[in-house]
């Protein structure tokens, strides 16, 4: 009896489920209203950009362009942009030059244009440094450059340049996340901002810009490592007699010079570190230095660790042997260190200490 009742219950549930789940079953016209419209997109809709598959190539119309493959030129420029309002995506590909010897050619040449963005790829030549700061070989003269010298609202992003004879990336407005290596002249010259970039093995200046952030410049020749108006979180290295890092205002920066020039030189330096490995220095030189460290690593009676020709506050200057650890017009809470030389040489000193060496202080306060 119970079993029969269960069967009836289950059957009722199944039947009711059909009624509940398909309330509109059998409604509406069976004849379709017409032929179905095409759902596929056109090529222009899927990729609304103009492909570039060979070089040399000249862009003469505004728009968006992209590389579809690696391209090589054996003479002349790689890509010339002769129209305003152009976006060029190298799409991870490389523009090569095999021209020998490298001459005045460009990987990407901006022919008197404005509003240009270049991104994501490589420009490559075969120029090398012979080890003495002399560059030669095959390739482009310059990686990216305009022919006009006015700021051209150009943004270069994610580009890597290698092996050019004259310059890496020059004359652009903003250079961001770019790398340059082995160029005979300046690595990166920007009319405005350089950010998150690196230029190494450059015959001229490594990086030169108005505002430079989080970047590294390295001159293997006679130039300065990094040269700017404002530098923040930067590293500058000069293998020759240029400045490691030269700027008007620096914050959290490091500069090193291997020959007789200054490691880091600024008008105002804060939280910075300057080193001179040559025979003079100073390691760090500034008008106002705060919380800075200057180091002159060579043995020279005229060497200076930290030289603040205005004020030094909370700084440390070290000179290896002979010379002066720290010299300033006014120094407060500073330490000088120079075995066999002058630890501190200041006109006005307040709360300063000489760790090794003698002190030369004309107006002394809170000092032994």
């Amino acid at each position, binding site marked *: 009896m119970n079993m029969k009742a269960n069967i009836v219950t289950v059957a009722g549930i199944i039947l009711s489920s059909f009624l509940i789940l398909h309330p509109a079953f059998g409604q509406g016209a069976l004849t379709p209203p017409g032929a179905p419209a095409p759902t596929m997109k056109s090529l222009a809709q899927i990729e609304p950009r103009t492909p570039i598959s060979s070089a040399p190539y000249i862009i003469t119309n505004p728009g968006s362009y992209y590389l579809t493959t690696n391209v090589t030129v054996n003479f002349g420029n790689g890509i010339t942009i002769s129209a305003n309002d152009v976006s060029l995506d190298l799409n991870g590909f490389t523009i090569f030059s095999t021209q020998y010897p490298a001459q005045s050619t460009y990987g990407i040449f901006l022919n008197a244009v404005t509003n240009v963005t270049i991104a994501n790829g490589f420009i490559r030549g075969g120029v090398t440094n012979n080890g003495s700061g002399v560059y030669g070989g095959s390739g482009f003269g310059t990686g990216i450059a305009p022919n006009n*010298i006015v700021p051209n609202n150009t943004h270069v992003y994610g580009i890597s340049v290698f092996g050019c004879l*004259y310059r890496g990336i020059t004359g652009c407005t903003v250079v961001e996340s770019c790398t340059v290596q082995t160029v005979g*002249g300046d690595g990166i010259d920007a009319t405005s901002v350089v950010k998150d970039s690196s230029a190494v093995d450059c015959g001229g200046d490594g990086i*030169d810009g108005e505002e430079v952030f989080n970047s590294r410049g390295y001159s293997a*020749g006679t*130039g300065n490592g990094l*040269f700017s108006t404002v530098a923040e979180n930067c590293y500058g290295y000069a293998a020759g007699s240029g400045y490691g890092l030269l700027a008007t205002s620096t914050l959290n920066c490091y500069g090193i010079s291997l020959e007789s020039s200054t490691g880091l030189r600024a008008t105002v330096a804060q939280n910075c570190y300057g080193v001179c490995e040559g025979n003079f220095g100073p390691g760090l*030189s500034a*008008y106002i230095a705060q919380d800075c460290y200057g180091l002159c690593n060579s043995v020279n009676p005229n060497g200076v660790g930290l030289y603040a020709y205005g004020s030094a506050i909370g700084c440390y200057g070290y000179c290896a042997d002979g010379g002066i650890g720290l*010299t300033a017009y006014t120094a407060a809470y500073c330490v000088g260190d120079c075995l066999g030389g002058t630890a501190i040489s200041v006109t006005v000193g307040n709360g300063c200490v000489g760790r090794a060496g003698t002190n030369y202080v004309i107006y002394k306060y809170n000092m032994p």
Partner: protein
Amino acid sequence: MAGVNEYTSTICHPKQSGLESRTVNAKIFFTALVWAALTCRPSFAFEGRLAANLTYGAATPLLYTVGTNSLRVEMTDTNRPYPVDIVDRSSGELTLVYPRNHSFVRLKPAADDSPPGIPPMPATPNQPPPGIGPQAAPGQPAMPAMPMMPPPIMEPLVLQDMGQKTNLLGFVCEHYEIKQGMERMEIWATDQLCPFQPYVQNEPHRSAPRRMEEQWAGLLAGKNLFPLLAVLRLNNGMERYRFEVQSVRPQKLTDEDTRLFQPPADYFEIQPRPF
């Protein structure tokens, strides 16, 4: 000058003047020449070579080749491909020639928008406010008065003639001095060579800070002076910078020498930095 003009006028109209008149005019002309030779600045007549040492840490030998219209400055005895400077003396245009990658750049003479020197520090009061500085504890003898503070450290650079003369390498040199902050530069310079041109290693940056050693050359050149000896010292006596001419060799430059005032033909001209 009147004599020269008169002579020119006579030559232009020879038939209107007799032999006697021409003789008189010729005398006036030669008198004018002698007067001009005596009074004109000999600096523009010097032609030849100067060897100098720039000691800014390491001693760097420099060679100046001075032509009538051009000047070449180069670093010698170096293991690096340092640039060569070529100056057009009439226009002031400086060409930096880079052996490192066979290129050169032409730089127009700096305008007045060159970066300013370091701003002067504000004047310091002679006495600190009450409670600031050395204080006498109760019951203790009074602390000595604060010493007079030194003058502001960054007074404008002035080339001061010290009124002394000496002879260096056969040239009469006058003694000048520049002071700023804790630095003092002594200069012995002559007007018998050419306006001074310092060796320039890199393209200048418009906002670079400038120290005394980067400004003194302009002061000298403005007075058509060339230093035979210049020494910059800190107030504790330490020498920080020295420019010293080792030899001066007047000589007529040959046609081959004049090629030194042009970049090599196979060098490529690059544009100056756009800022």
